[in-house]
């Protein structure tokens, strides 16, 4: 629990700073899902793009990285009740595969943690704050990576088949985050 809270606090701070930076520096420094998703770094099965943001890795034979697969599962447990199957949206929440085309990694994190409201006009849209939800927060990168793959059309409306194994580092990080 402690490590989870630490991580959350870290993300909160990070997100707050990131938001400020976005406001100050303008779009040139933002990292979008639409940026080149090419993985240039592999840290124990977790992939990062040239800007250091989490990204997916899908091999020519369709094998996906663990985080894309895990993100598929977590998305369809925590997010799909509002945002629809496969990131496609519902009658009352946006399609995240579209949202990620103009939301950078930091903004994505900030919205999940803080939530957002767009009320009025007869179509009340409210995203809850999920900052205290370990089932989301411990898998935030997983969900991001999955949606990034969906947004880039690198992954279709399918359950990922072949996947890389979960690394020991990932297992340890998950346990620490969940406070087990």
């Amino acid at each position, binding site marked *: 629990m402690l490590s989870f809270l630490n991580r959350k606090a870290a993300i909160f701070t990070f997100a707050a700073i990131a938001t400020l930076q976005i406001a100050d520096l303008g779009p040139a420094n933002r990292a979008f899902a639409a940026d080149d998703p090419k993985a240039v770094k592999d840290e124990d099965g977790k992939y990062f793009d040239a800007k250091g943001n989490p990204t997916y890795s899908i091999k020519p034979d369709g094998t996906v990285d663990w985080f894309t697969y895990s993100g598929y599962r977590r998305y369809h*447990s925590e997010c799909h009740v509002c945002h629809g199957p496969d990131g496609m949206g*519902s009658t009352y929440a946006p399609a995240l595969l579209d949202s990620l085309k103009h939301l950078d990694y930091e903004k994505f994190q900030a919205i999940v943690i803080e939530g957002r409201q767009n009320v009025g006009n007869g179509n009340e849209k409210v995203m*809850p704050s999920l900052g205290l939800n370990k089932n989301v927060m411990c898998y935030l990168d997983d969900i991001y990576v999955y949606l990034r793959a969906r947004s880039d059309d690198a992954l279709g409306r399918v359950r990922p088949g072949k996947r890389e194994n979960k690394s020991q580092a990932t297992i340890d990080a998950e346990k620490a985050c969940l406070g087990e």
Partner: protein
Amino acid sequence: MRKFTAAVIALACSWTLSASANDSVLKLTQDPNQWALQTGDYANTRFSKLKQINSENVGKLQVAWSFSTGVLRGHEGSPLVVGETMYVHTPFPNIVYALDLNNEGRILWKYEPKQDPNVIPVMCCDTVNRGLAYADGKIFLHQADTTLVALDSKTGKVLWSVVNGDPKKGETNTATVLPVKDKVIVGISGGEFGVHCHVTAYDMNTGKQVWRAYSMGPDKDMLMDPEKTTELGKPVGVDSSLKTWQGDQWKIGGGCTWGWYAYDPQLDTFYYGTGNPSTWNPKQRPGDNKWSLSIFARDPNTGVAKWVYQMTPHDEWDYDGVNEMILSDQQIGGQMRPTLVHFDRNGFGYTLDRKTGELLVAEKFDPAVNWATKVDMDKNSKTYGRPLVVAKYSTEHNGEDVNTSGVCPAALGTKDQQPAAYSPETGLFYVPTNHVCMDYEPFKVSYTPGQPYVGATLSMYPAPNSHGGMGNFVAWDAKAGKIVWSLPEQFSVWSGALATSGGVVFYGTLEGYLKAVDAKTGKLLYKFKTPSGIIGNVMTYTHKGKQYVAVLSGVGGWAGIGLAAGLTDPNAGLGAVGGYAALSSYTALGGQLTVFTLP
């Protein structure tokens, strides 16, 4: 108005049981010219004796007038008509309009509660509300944030209000209420948030809480009598719920009570069902998880349970048991029985003796249902009354982190809340259904108050090897447990049906059609495309001697999640891609009431 009063008096004189129910509700629901409860009557038949619009002339139906609600989310439930006023409700923010039927629907009064918008994302599946109820000159609104309000039906003035739950813990409301005698009986939602759900009675005149009965926990909290409360004819015994949970898990055990309630004035008993146990991961909550997914019969005066029957012990698929309980009398085995008929999410149509709770019939009302072979009807069997689960489709058996595929029905059930209708004239039940299957992969989740507590990944698709559509409109014989006819629909039928003495049955579709079919044969007699998909329920009334049919359009609800984007089709080969088009190609958001009549 004078004519109406005379009719009411005549009915009141002919009704000898009025003292044991709510007089005003009984009188109004006996009068086919009005529609005072969402369910049409206490028995939940959704049947009207009106026959001006009939199978001969329904093809000539026209739009008489329409009304925009000003809200764009999913519109469930229906308007009420009492006297010469129509009462229309909306999804969050739960506006109530009183419309003057004598003046082309002019707004007599409008009530708009101020609710914290943070309740919106805590509601599982859209911000739907299944409507108002009327009794004793009051309109009852149970808001999303669980505030129960009594409004003066003439002025819209708030007479009293009371708070039933806490949205910060995930407690919300989507259901209507049941006015019985001097009480208003209400349920609560939050099964996806680990809420410990209950049913509660409030004093109709003051809003003071009278009793509360939880769906699970100690006997005294559940208002269970270990000796007198029975299941399938036998006393439930001490701690019947606690024995079926590991440790304190029942405290976040769900069993929510968000469905349609029925009341039998003669037996002075009300009936309702309980929802899924939390979480959706069965491995995490060993045991039968009583009394989730159960039918309850309770005494409205004290709340004490008379009998209970658990349809799906130890849920592995999210098969909530909250669907409507339809009360009628049926000839079964050469004997007239007071029956309760219930079309469950799990795909079985149940017929029980509502006095004793005896199980009479349990058969599949969609042939696609495969998670269980049958319900054990052998009274001498150890598994009497339990479904015989197929291991291949058991997410418990297959375990965590395993994707169990091809389970029918999907989590939204062969039928969700969309209520069926019963015509005593044809003896048939008219059931709006889903024809959708799923893959279901449970995994471990942790509980945080007020946060989703789900723990399963689902993917849904139209029932394979069938007509390709996602719904059917089914006529059902509850005596034999047999489908009489079935109309395939492209999308799930998420609209409540209406049966009438005119030999016509009405229902709405997700594309937005109001359809009228022949009650005997199912032949399509009329259809009209309203501005948005229909998840509301069809109702009927008269005004100045003319019959009207009304329905709310406004796509959304759980149907708006998966179907808006279109479901995935695991069987789609190269040629079939795009065969299951998205609902969003057919309809868009909109909240509108459409009222029909003959020219």
